[in-house]
Every structure is written in C-alpha cells, then in structure tokens.
C-alpha cells in the first residue's frame, strides 16, 4: 500500500515537473474542447429546432395535409365524423416578407391563419391585450378584422412595433396591409425566432387567396386510442388525395439532413481528439524512454512489472482526466461561438432555426471527461507495457536495448497493408442513404494504416537523406542520424502530425472537389442572363410569388430573347415532401441545360416534353431508389397523374432533391399558374446591366420587393453561401493542426532533454549556439517532410472516402473528384512551417544548455 502511494507520488511529481506534460495536457484539452464544443453546439441547435417544432405542434396528435396541394375545407365534415377526433384546427398559412421594417431590413414571416377562437387549445400561446378590458366592438373588430395580425413579443420588440401600428406584408408584388392587433407570448412566440404571425382563418383565406382551402388540419384525438388506429381509419375515410400522419413526420426530411450534417461535423471534430490520442501516446512513450533509469531503479527495489504498468497507465489517466476537465471547460466557452456559426449555417442551408440558447448539458460534460479518460488509458497501454517489460539491468545501464533501434517496421507495414485492405472492402459496401457507418469506419482504418507505415517511411527517408547529404553541413547528417535513432519516439509524433495533415488535406480536397463541381454545375445550368425573383426567394420556404403580369411584360421587351417562368411547390410523393418544379422546358432546352447522367440535355428534355414525363435530381433518385425509365404516379388535385422518369440530372441543393416537369403540366393538373422565378435570356448578352436597370425601374420598386440579378451576381451569391457553409469545417481543421503542432514541439523538447549530454559535448568540441539550433531545426524539418509526404498520400485516400462514400450516403451528391495541385505546395508549406515553428523553441532551449552541467550530467 505504501509502495503504491509512493509510486503514485513519484509519478505525479514527475508529471508536474515536466513541461511536455503541460503541452500534452493542452493538446488533449484542445482536442476534447473541440469535440465537446461541437457536440454542445449541435445539441443546442437541435434542441432549439425541436423546441420550436414542438411548441408549434403543441397538443396536436395527427395532422392532415393534401398530397398535391391545399385541402378542400369541406373535408372537415368527414374528419368530424370520426368519434375519436376531439378537436380540429384548420390552418391556412403562407410565408411572406414584411414590406419594410424599422430596422431597415424586411423580415420573412410565417403567417398562420387559424381559428383564433380555439387556437389556444392547440398551441400554447397567450395574447397580451390592452390594459383595459376590451369592449365588445373593439374585441371582435380587433380579432376578426381582416387586417388584424398578432405578432410575437420578440418580433414586435425587434421591429419596434406596437399595437395599432401598420404592418404591411408583400404578396405577388402587391402590399397586404395589416395592423398589429395583439402581441403573442408563450412558447409559440419563440418559433422561428419570433418570425411568426397569426391572423384569423377567415381573413387568411380571403387575403391570401385561399378561399375554400386549407393548408393543413391539426387534430387532437382521444387519449386512450392509439394514434395509429385513428390515422389508418382517417386515411381510409378521407381518400387518396389526403395524407394523414403524425405531426413529427412533417420534419422528418429536415431532421434526416440535419442529422447527416451534424454527424459530419462531429466526425470532423473527432479528428482533433484522434490527434490528441497520439499526443498522449507519444508523451508517455517518451516518458518511458526518458525514465529508464528510474524504472530500473524501481524494478531493482522490488517493484514488479504489473506495478510499473499501472504506474504508467496512471500517468496517462491523470493527463487524460485533467485534459478532459480542461477540455470540457474550454469546450463550453468555445461552444458559445460555434453555436452562432452553426445556427447561421443550418438556417441558410436547411431550416430556420431560432437563435439557439446555449445549453450546457451535464451529460456532455461527463462525456467529454470520459472521452479524455478512455482515450488516455487506451493510448497509455502500449507505453506502459513497454515500461513494464524493461529488464532492471537494461534499464539501470541506460543502454538502448536491441528493441529500441530495431523496431520491426516490416511487421507494422504488413499490418498497415491489411488495414488498408479492410478499409477498401468497407468502402465498397453497398451504400445506404443516411448514416455512412462503413465510410467512417473505413476512414478510421485508413488513418491507422498510414500511421503504421510511418516508421518504414522514416527509415527509408533517413537512408535517402543519408545519401543526399553526404557532402552537406554536419547539422543535416546529425539530425538525420538522430531521426532514425529515435524512431520509436518520432514515429508516433510524425503519425499524429501526419493524421492531422491527412485529415486536413482530405477535407480540403473534398471541399475543393465540391466547389469545383458546384461551379461547373452553376456554369452549365445557370445560363440565363438575368434572374428575377421576389426578395424573399433566398429564404427557403417563402411563399411569395411574382406578379402575374410580369412574365408577359418581360417577354414583350425588345431586348429579351426568351423567358422561362419557374414555379416550385411541395407535393407529397410516397408520403414524403418532395419539391416539384414546373418550368418552360422548351425554353430551358434551347438556352440552358441540365447535366444528365445519361444523354444530352436537349435530347432528354425534348423527349420529356413530348412524353409529358419528368426529370429528377440525383439526390431524389437516391432517396427513393428511382431509375431512369421508372413509372411513377404523382398526386394532383385532379387525381393521380402517372408519368415516367425521363432523366436524372445532377443537382447540388440541400433540399432533398427535386422533380422537374414542363410548367404546362403544373397548370393543367395542379391549376397552379404562379411563378417564383423568371429566367431571362437576352438577345445581346453583353450588356445585362442596362436591361437589369430597365427591369428594376419598371417592376423593381422597393415596395414590390422584386429583385433582378445578373448571372454573374447570382453565381457569386451561391458561392458565398457555399463558402460560408464550410467556414466551420476549416476552423475545426486548424485546431487539429494546432494540436499536432503541440505534439511536434513536445517530441522535440524531449529530444533535447535526452541529448543534453550529446549537445554539451557537441558544444564542447566547438559547435556554436546557432549550429545547435540548426541541428534541432533540421530534425524538425525532416519530421515535417515525412509527416507531409505520408499525410498527402493518406489524405488522398481519405478524400476519396469522404467524397464517394460518406458524402454520397449523407447527402446523395455525386461530386467530381478534383485534386488541386496547389494543395501539395500548401501542405508542404504548412507542414514545414508548422514543424519549424514547433522546433524553434526546443532548439533555442538546446542552445542554452549549460556546457559544464551538461557534460557533468552523468
């Protein structure tokens, strides 16, 4: 027992004294902090999303929507017959932009038309009225007045609006006048960041042009009856054109995509953790080497192998646990910033997320610390085993045992090859839409495979350098000799560095491939010279459409060659929401194109027009396992519409895919004559700006909220969104690099300590301080070069996995692989710069070694 305490005391004292312990600690803490912050941010954003969805769902147990569009309100008569339906809330809704705000920025509102008399029993909201009780006339006129609108407290305060203030919205280029009649509080008011407004359903039908129609019906059903039973009964009762489902199902698609997105982020953040693992491993291994004597002494004093093993495991545990605690604290702080970026990104990509309050849940903290503990214990095992198997004599003598120099790099190489093989096999696993477990596993394996290759590369490299530097300054050879000698210590360091680089490189290649693909796609498919759309179009679910007279008006302009009216709506295809686009395919075929998997754009489109077929995006094809030539049936208000898939095209939206048909079909089968976007092709496309100005002066007055943008500008906007999306990814990678950098500094530090005597002698025989510095820096340089060479190779394979396995499964996109050669240059600069930076401080330290003391070391 006392022995144990003694051991622990020695061990801990050791730990605290060593600078590299602190470096390791910081590295581990950084790794964990990144992981934890991403986890916290993910959860905060998700819970903000869920909360707003839940508040919105309220007490609703079932919702009824039309498969092809709004429902006929007469349907309520049938729903009411069901004995287990207790309450029915009809809803008419529209997402519309406000005409202008005091803040100068028009915001987008979800306008819900509900039966205000019973809404409170569905969704938890309270209305704050005036101080005095309203008299009859005021109360009814305020609520039932078709111009009355109820705003949330959050929104009203943000916009500086009070009861009685005018609040105009925009629809089809015209103004819809409303007056603030009340302020909503309670949970519902938090939905969409407060950008939700309520009006009475009668007013909604009238003013939103939806007389006789309902967008959705929410039901509250009897407690004791299984919802499934009621759903199937109602489905039968209401017929084919209606979809009866759980309210949660509405968000399934969004949730799936959010899940993939967040999973990818988590995986990326795990990179730093992975690098941290190497760091601990490295530190402890170095520690074993450094403390051979101490181990020998302890062993001679009768401490057995198991105790030595425990001693070193404990050291790892202490580092891991403290790193875990530190990491969790830092992660919590980091999360504040990550949450903001993440909500912005998610909002611009998938779904409007209210400002997410940062929640710091205990389980995530515990998880962070636990990860620290597990990772550290795991990475301490091998060094501890190494320490335990040292023979007392060997250790006491301080001689390098045969195993020290003679690492069996061939066996490691073989192991690496095996791992790589398994990884390849995994990557060929049949793809499932959603979570790509095989992709992640294959990535982890390939990283490990390349780590195992590192020692062989060091030896190979060292031999090559030996030859190359035959005539060079002694610093180059000295460093080379040491590199090879300390392979057991340098191996893990370089591996860690390599891993960080590889992941960085793979992500860069992935993003570059993605970017190139998107650029190519935009260039080929966005050919119109000017695009016109409502100002709110960039908001994912805005319902604002263009004025009816716009299309013929533009067509009649002298400068215009052709106009393509584009309309998008959501239908329920196989019970899931799918975007259906109607556009003038003939115009599109003549002037622009789709990138089809097979066939030319013009050929496919021509056929699609003739056969009244549809083309679908690759993502949609993956989502529903559809192939070219498949027969499908689309629900329309006039009954089922059977059609064929005429082609599959590449598309890189984040919307879960789309289906495109000629707009004439949308008109006949859906009676939908609206247009969201006009694509304008000019006779002379050299001066789009002048036409743009003309269009603006004719239709683009601010109150109409129309935007006309030139091709160049539009493309730039898309790319800006794209780049913003990957901001966080880059940030994550940088942190991984910093962790690896700490690893290199750490190893070099130890290397200096190890070689105090050597350096002392070196100095004694006449080496100058700058020369000492040079030797150390050269070794760092070698490490950087090796790390980068292996990292590049590993990164290349990783990027293949990312692009063709993980991304494909998570998002359904096919990306063109694009390896930018400049990556090689950049990574070299980065790797060597990093290595030199990390080596500089140890080098300086080495130069400062006191001569006498160093030689007297023995």
């Amino acid at each position: 027992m006392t022995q144990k305490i003694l051991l622990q005391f020695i061990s801990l004292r050791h730990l605290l004294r060593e600078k590299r312990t602190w470096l390791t600690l910081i590295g581990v803490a950084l790794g964990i902090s990144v992981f934890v912050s991403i986890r916290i941010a993910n959860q905060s954003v998700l819970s903000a999303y869920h909360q707003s969805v839940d508040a919105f769902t309220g007490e609703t147990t079932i919702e009824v929507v039309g498969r092809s569009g709004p429902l006929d309100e007469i349907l309520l008569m049938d729903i009411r017959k069901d004995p287990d339906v207790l309450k029915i809330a009809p809803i008419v809704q529209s997402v519309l932009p406000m005409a202008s705000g005091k803040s100068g920025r028009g915001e987008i509102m979800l306008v819900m038309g509900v039966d205000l008399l019973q809404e409170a029993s569905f969704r938890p909201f309270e209305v704050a009225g005036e101080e005095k009780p309203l008299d009859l006339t005021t109360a009814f006129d305020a609520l039932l007045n078709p111009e009355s609108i109820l705003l949330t407290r959050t929104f009203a305060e943000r916009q500086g609006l009070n009861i009685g203030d005018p609040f105009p919205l925009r629809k089809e280029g015209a103004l819809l006048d409303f007056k603030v009649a009340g302020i909503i509080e309670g949970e519902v008011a938090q939905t969409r960041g407060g950008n939700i407004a309520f009006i009475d359903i009668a007013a909604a039908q009238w003013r939103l042009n939806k007389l006789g129609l309902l967008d959705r019906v929410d039901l509250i059903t009897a407690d004791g009856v299984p919802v499934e039973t009621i759903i199937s009964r109602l489905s039968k009762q209401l017929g084919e054109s209606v979809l009866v489902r759980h309210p949660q199902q509405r968000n399934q698609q969004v949730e799936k995509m959010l899940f993939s997105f967040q999973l990818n982020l988590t995986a990326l953040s795990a990179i730093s953790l992975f690098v941290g693992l190497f760091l601990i491993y490295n530190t402890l291994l170095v520690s074993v080497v450094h403390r051979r004597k101490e181990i020998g002494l302890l062993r001679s004093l009768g401490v057995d192998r198991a105790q030595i093993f425990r001693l070193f495991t404990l050291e790892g545990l202490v580092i891991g646990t403290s790193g875990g605690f530190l990491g969790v604290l830092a992660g919590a702080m980091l999360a504040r910033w990550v949450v903001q970026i993440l909500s912005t990104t998610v909002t611009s990509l998938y779904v409007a997320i209210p400002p997410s309050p940062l929640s710091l849940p205990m389980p995530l903290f515990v998880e962070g610390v636990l990860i620290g503990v597990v990772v550290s214990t795991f990475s301490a095992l091998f060094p501890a085993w190494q320490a335990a198997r040292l023979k007392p004599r060997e250790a006491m003598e301080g001689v390098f045992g045969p195993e020290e120099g003679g690492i069996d790099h061939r066996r490691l190489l073989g192991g690496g090859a095996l791992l790589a093989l398994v990884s390849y096999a995994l990557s060929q696993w049949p793809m499932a839409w959603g979570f790509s477990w095989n992709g992640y596993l294959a990535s982890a394996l390939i990283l490990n495979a390349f780590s195992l290759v590192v020692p062989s590369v060091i030896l190979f490299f060292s031999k090559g350098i030996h030859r190359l530097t035959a005539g060079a300054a002694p610093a180059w050879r000295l460093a080379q000799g040491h590199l090879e000698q300390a392979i057991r210590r340098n191996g893990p360091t370089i591996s860690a560095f390599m891993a960080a680089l590889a992941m960085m490189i793979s992500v860069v290649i992935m993003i570059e491939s993605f970017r190139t693909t998107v650029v190519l796609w935009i260039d080929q498919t966005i050919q119109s010279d000017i695009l016109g759309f409502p100002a709110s179009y960039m908001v994912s679910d805005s319902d604002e459409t263009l004025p009816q007279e716009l299309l013929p008006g533009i067509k009649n302009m002298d400068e215009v060659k052709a106009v393509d009216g584009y309309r998008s709506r959501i239908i329920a295809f196989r019970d899931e929401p799918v975007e259906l686009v109607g556009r003038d395919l003939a115009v599109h075929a003549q002037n622009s194109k789709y990138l089809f998997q097979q066939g030319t754009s013009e050929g496919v489109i021509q056929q699609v027009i003739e056969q009244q077929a549809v083309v679908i995006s690759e993502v949609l094809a993956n989502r529903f396992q559809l192939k070219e030539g498949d027969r499908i049936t689309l629900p329309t208000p006039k009954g089922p519409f059977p059609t064929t898939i005429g082609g599959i095209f590449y598309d890189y939206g984040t919307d879960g895919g789309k289906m495109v048909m000629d707009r004439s079909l949308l008109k006949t089968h859906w009676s939908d004559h609206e247009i969201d976007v006009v694509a304008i092709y000019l006779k002379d496309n050299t001066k789009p700006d002048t036409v743009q100005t003309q269009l603006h002066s004719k239709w683009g007055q601010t109150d109409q909220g129309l935007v006309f943008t030139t091709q160049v500008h539009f493309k730039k906007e898309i790319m800006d969104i794209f780049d913003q999306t990957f901001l966080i990814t880059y940030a994550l990678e940088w942190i991984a690099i910093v962790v690896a950098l700490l690893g290199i500094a750490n190893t070099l530090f130890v290397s200096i300590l190890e070689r105090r005597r050597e350096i002392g002698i070196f100095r004694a025989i006449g080496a100058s301080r700058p020369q000492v510095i040079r030797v150390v820096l050269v070794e760092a340089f070698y490490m950087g070069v090796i790390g980068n060479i292996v990292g590049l190779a590993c990164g290349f394979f990783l990027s293949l996995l990312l692009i063709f396995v993980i991304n494909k499964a998570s998002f359904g996109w096919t990306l063109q692989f694009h390896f930018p050669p400049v990556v090689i240059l950049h990574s070299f600069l980065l790797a060597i710069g990093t290595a030199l930076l990390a080596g500089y401080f140890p080098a300086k330290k080495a130069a400062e070694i006191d001569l006498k003391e160093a030689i007297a070391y023995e």
Partner: protein
Amino acid sequence: MNKYRLGYALFCWIMLFQFQAFAESGRFEKARTGYTYNFPRDHGSHPDFLIEWWYFTGNLTAKNGAPYGYELTFFRRGIENTQGKNNPSKWTVRDIYLAHFAVTDIGNKTFYYDEKISREGIGKAGALTDKMEVWIDRWSAVQNGETMLLSAGDKSWKLDLTLTPLKPLVIQGEGGISKKGEVDGAASHYYSFTRLQSKGTLIVNGEEVSVSGLSWMDHEFGSALLGDGQVGWDWFSIQLDDGSEYMFYQIREKDGQKDPISSGSIIFPDGTKQHLKAKDFTLTPQAFWKSPKSGATYPLEWTLSVPSERLRLSAKPALKDQELVTNKSTRVVYWEGASLFKGEKDGQAIQGKGYIELTGYARALQGK
C-alpha cells in the same frame, strides 16, 4: 397588463353580460310587442336578433335514488364584424356559439362544468332556422318530433337525455315579450317548456348511470337584454309536486334595488299561465355563501312568496358550490344550481325542485 387565454374567457364575458347598446346596430332587430310566434319555426335560430339561447336544466334521479342536477345551455350571439362582413370565406364570423354544461352530483357533493365556444366553421357549430337543432362539436340539442334530444360532455362527464313535454309550451311575459328594461327593445321573446319528462344516461366521473326526472327548457331571443344601470339578475324555475310551475326573475340595479320591470309567471297543472308583475311576488335572500373560487358572495337561500296564491316557499341549494367560473383571469362567474323548494300553499305543505340562476355578483366581472 391584462393577459387572457385567447378564446373562451373574453367571449363568454362579452356574450353573457354586455348586452347593452347593441339594439342600435343596423343588423339586428329589436324584440317588440306583437310578435307572432310560429312553431316549430321559432324553436329554431333567429339570426336577425343579436342574442339567443336554448337553456335546459333539470333534476334527475338514478335508479338507486341518487339525485343529480344538470344545466346545458347553448348561446348564439350575432357578430357585427364591421370590417370583415364582405369576406366570402365560410369562416367569416357572423354568429358565435357558446355552450355551458354542468352536472351536479348531489350525493357526492361534486359540481362539474365545461364550456365551449365556436364559430360556425364548416359545420363545427350552428343552429337551424326551421326547427330546433343547435350544436357545437358533439354537444347538441335537437328537436325530434315531439321530443328533444340533448347531448353534451366528454368521456368522463356526459349527458344524453330525451325530453318529452308533459305540458305545452308557454310564452312568457306580456304581448309576446319579456321586458328587461324601460327602453324600447330592452326585452326578449321568451317561451318555456316548464315540465319535461326526462330519461337517459349520465356519465358521472366515468361511471354511467340511467337517470330520469324533470327538466325545464327556456328559449329566449332578443337584441338588448340588460339596460344601463342594471348589474345582474336572480332567476328561479320551480317545479312543484302539485303539478304547477313558477318562474321568477328580478333584475338588480347598481344601487341594489330591484328593477320594477322584474316579473314572473305561474303555470297551473292544466297548462294555463298567469303573468306575475314585480309587485305580485317577493324574493328575499336569507343566507349567503362566499365562493372560495371567485370571492363572490351569493344569496343561496331565499324565501319566496306569491300572496295571491297564498304560496310561501323557502329555497335551498342542493349543493352550495354550483358556481361556474369560466375563466379565472376575466372572472366570468355566475351561479346556476339545482335547488330544493319547501313551504306551503293554501295552507297545505308543498315541495318541489328547480334551478336558481344568480348573475352579476362577481364584481371583478367589469375588470380592474
């Protein structure tokens, strides 16, 4: 800041107690002398009048003798909707429907109530104009030949009753109107079925019981029922064991005085009716009860006398707490309860059952 749960409260309060000043609005007719009743048409809805209600109360007994009371009232209120009246949407509000449903489980001293409010919507609520059929969701009062079918409540408290008139209906008041104030139009058209044989089932706190007994039905419609200065009313319906029924109401003024317009009626066993003027009867409160829920003090025990009939009755509630607080924040509060009557008539001991309605006692009604 005065917060309210959007929905019930505001409208109940408006609906029941703020009747003044609405006869002037163009859309609605006034209740005036000379109205010719026409049945079954007048059992139906009268959208030309601002306010209308179908009111049912009764004292029921289970087979094992357990006594129950119930109230089921449907209200219709015309809505001016000045801005939205041209809206072609079927959801446009022209009438608001409300319903109050209460059950008194006298044996277990339990009082249950629930309420509904609704626009017509697409068949969600409504009232036919050619016969009595008024409903909100699954609560309804429907005329079925000579009988009336009542249905209200949910799973754990529910009422299903068939009512059969034992006497023909009586038109209350004089000249076809029941006056509520001196102003022109401050009156209602008002008729009653004073003795309805009732049979059906009650679900009381989840348990189903077969019940039978006597009910009372009022149907009233008009456009301005309470005048300025009037704060509430006390209303009595009494079914005596000798086959006669009595109805009294007195309207109270701000100063606590009884408005001279108050009146009543006697329905003799043969079905003939005699109108009573304010001076023909006295209603004297004897004991008071303060509601722990609303804080309002109600006169729950009364002595009633009709000197011309040599009738003296004392009234006691079957249960003290039969108060309906439709919403705490606006304190829409009234007392409507099954009551027992005992006394003597013409020197003979007599007893009966009935309902008492007491409104306007919760001062907070007018808001802070």
